[in-house]
């Protein structure tokens, strides 16, 4: 009896019970690009999940080579999942001048509305708003951010 209990525990440890045949996975295809802009007295540059960009305040978007970050989510076909995006001011771009924070991350799909297709995958795009300071120093700014996906 005691031996059977121990064996059962070991089996459970090795093979945890699951309702999913495949673990959900996400891979990145391309980064989030805010393009090139003149800062002026400051403002924002917003990239939508569709990749459209716009400037506000005194920011002038000079080269509109903006792009939303693109991911591929894979897992069990037709299962739904949620997307966890970074909080406001949690991600910064660093460069020759003051750090620039990214706020208002948005995604498509968003929240708990992710649903894998019949083939077990779905494309996910992520945009955000870059906050540009007054007379932001010219140069290249870079940073990283992480998103999390999980089954609903």
């Amino acid at each position, binding site marked *: 009896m005691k031996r059977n209990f121990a064996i059962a525990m070991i089996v459970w440890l090795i093979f945890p019970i699951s309702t999913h045949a495949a673990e959900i996975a996400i891979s990145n295809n391309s980064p989030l690009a*805010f393009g*090139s802009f*003149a800062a002026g007295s400051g403002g924002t540059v917003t990239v939508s999940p569709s990749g459209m960009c716009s400037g506000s305040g005194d920011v002038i978007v*000079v080269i509109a080579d903006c792009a939303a970050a693109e991911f591929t989510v894979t897992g069990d076909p037709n299962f739904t999942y949620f997307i966890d995006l970074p909080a406001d001011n949690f991600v910064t771009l660093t460069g020759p001048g003051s750090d620039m924070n990214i706020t208002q991350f948005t995604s498509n799909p968003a929240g708990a509305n992710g649903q894998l297709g019949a083939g077990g995958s779905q494309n996910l795009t992520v945009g955000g708003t870059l906050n540009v300071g007054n007379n932001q120093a*010219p140069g290249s700014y870079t940073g990283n951010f992480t998103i999390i*996906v999980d089954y609903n």
Partner: protein
Amino acid sequence: MRILFSCFAFFFRFVAVVVFVSACNAFADRATTASHATVVEPARVSENVRIWTTSSFASGMTGDLIIRLPAAGPATISLSDEHDTLGSGTSALHVGPSIESVESAISAWHAQLADCTGSACSTRPEAGVLDGNPVNSIDISTSEADETSPTNITVIVTYN
């Protein structure tokens, strides 16, 4: 012996609980990607602007022009259809207003470079297609759209 077995049993239960909790979250996954931006420093050359004008433009108006000097790719700034004749060239200078008040008033513009000798200078002057630098003058012609706007034009020049 009994005490030892009890300790093992407790240990297994504890581990089982930990593993069970972990298993509940075992399917989450994460991905990290980069983000980047480029801040450009415009060279303000308003003092070099030479206005070729109608009387309405001479009365003055306010606005910005953005000039994009030749680089690797075609221009991407959106202008009205009337003005945006760029896009097909790979070495294009893009001259355009950045605010609507100017765009509505300007019907055509010319931009000239100090060493502008290519065909682009003569064939597409109104689109601001140029193939060299530096910029030493900008000619602007306008319609009679705005006779009341005040002050000057500021020109911002940036490389692609």
